[in-house]
């Protein structure tokens, strides 16, 4: 089918079937052990963590792919205090609607995802690129290495882009993605999520993350989500159902705001005003 031929052509990922037989109970016990140690350290006065651990063995693929040495603290220099500039030359307005990229309507629950991107100082991140990608409503990615025997949707690719507004807002219309199985351990399932790729005003703020949906029963079982040891930090990745964003007889609405790390630039007063 033409869809597969075109869209799979740049795919190249080789996924190893490592550690596929560990049961969920074992993975959950490993997660619980790391979290218990973290809770004790906070109780004993350690600073709460806000980012995932990169050394988190319940996520098996991380074992050989995390640096073992502490990152080196450095003051950002010229180029690091700026980000590449994107604009409407780069992204067409229609790219933010993932439901109109083909001849027909994709299957699934139509949703609007909207939010605001702020930097650590509370400034809106203006006119900056946001990219998303996701599985379809059946939990299948358009990717040749995704072997999950769930149907592809010829009307859904699952890729979107937009440029934030002057107030730092982004908005996408899409389909609620399904959960899907993966090979981390036996009977491993990822909670439904949308991947987000974000730029700030400084290249040091560059980030990629995942947005989740409220109340997902797979949260506790997922070593990627649980690599964030702090519950408050984990909650920051979960969108909120927002009935004011829900559109009459059209789509349900989810709000998800994003905070980047602090900018290290010297800001002019007029730029600083919110």
């Amino acid at each position: 089918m033409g869809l597969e031929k075109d869209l799979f052509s740049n795919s190249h990922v080789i996924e190893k079937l490592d550690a596929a037989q560990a049961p969920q109970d074992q993975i959950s016990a490993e997660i619980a052990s790391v979290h218990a140690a973290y809770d004790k350290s906070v109780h004993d006065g350690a600073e709460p963590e806000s980012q995932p651990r990169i050394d988190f063995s319940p996520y098996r693929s991380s074992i050989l792919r995390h640096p073992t040495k502490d990152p080196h603290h450095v003051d950002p220099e010229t180029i690091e205090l700026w980000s590449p500039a994107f604009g409407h030359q780069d992204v067409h307005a229609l790219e933010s609607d993932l439901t109109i990229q083909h001849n027909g309507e994709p299957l699934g629950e139509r949703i609007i995802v909207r939010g605001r991107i702020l930097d650590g100082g509370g400034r809106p991140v203006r006119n900056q690129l946001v990219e998303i990608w996701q599985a379809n409503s059946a939990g299948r990615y358009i990717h040749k290495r995704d072997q999950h025997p769930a149907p592809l949707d010829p009307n859904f690719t699952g890729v979107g882009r937009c440029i934030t507004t002057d107030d730092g807002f982004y908005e996408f219309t899409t389909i609620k993605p399904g959960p899907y199985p993966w090979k981390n351990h036996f009977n491993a399932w990822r909670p439904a999520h949308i991947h987000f790729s974000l730029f700030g005003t400084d290249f040091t703020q560059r980030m990629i993350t995942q947005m989740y949906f409220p109340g997902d029963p797979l949260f506790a079982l997922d070593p990627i989500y649980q690599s964030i040891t702090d519950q408050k930090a984990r909650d920051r990745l979960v969108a909120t159902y927002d009935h004011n964003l829900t559109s009459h007889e059209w789509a349900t609405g989810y709000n998800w705001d994003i905070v980047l790390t602090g900018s290290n630039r010297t800001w002019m007063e007029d730029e600083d005003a919110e």
Partner: protein
Amino acid sequence: MSEQKLTATPGQTIGPFYGYALPFEKDNQLLAPGLPGSIRLQGTVTDGAGDTIPDALLEIWQADAEGNVPQQTGSLVRDGYTFTGWGRTAVDNTGNYTFTTVNPGPTEAGSAPFISFVIFARGLLNKLHTRMYLPDDEEALARDALLSSLPEDRRRTLIATREADGGLRWDISLQGENETAFLTYPGA
């Protein structure tokens, strides 16, 4: 300096399935190959066992040849001539990456030119930042504040090698004996 009034949202791994979403046509060509001043920047990405990582995504961000910070839009619609200073590439099946770019100039008189790298991969739970320094100006490298603060075995992981064709080679190791020095910034 950085002021952190709000707590940053956590990062997460890029996962395995970005290949149909993030790469775009000429994403790794900051200018067209063969244009005057263009060089090839290449290397490998390896894990703690020394195996190559075929499912990593790299981005570079750099000054132009004169040391100016580009603020031109148009990276996603490469015209081959507008230098936007930013590029992206998916590491290939054999763990190699390639960019076509220019040697960045020093952004301040006497400073050591470098290219800012950010690294994403399946199995890597958050992004990694680092710098790749040009090897040519040894005096500037010797004066550089970051390089001077690193022990020799860490310092050398941040300096590229100049190849016979004028290009640059720089290998990235996420873990192990030659683990690349990764960076963190105030407010991160």
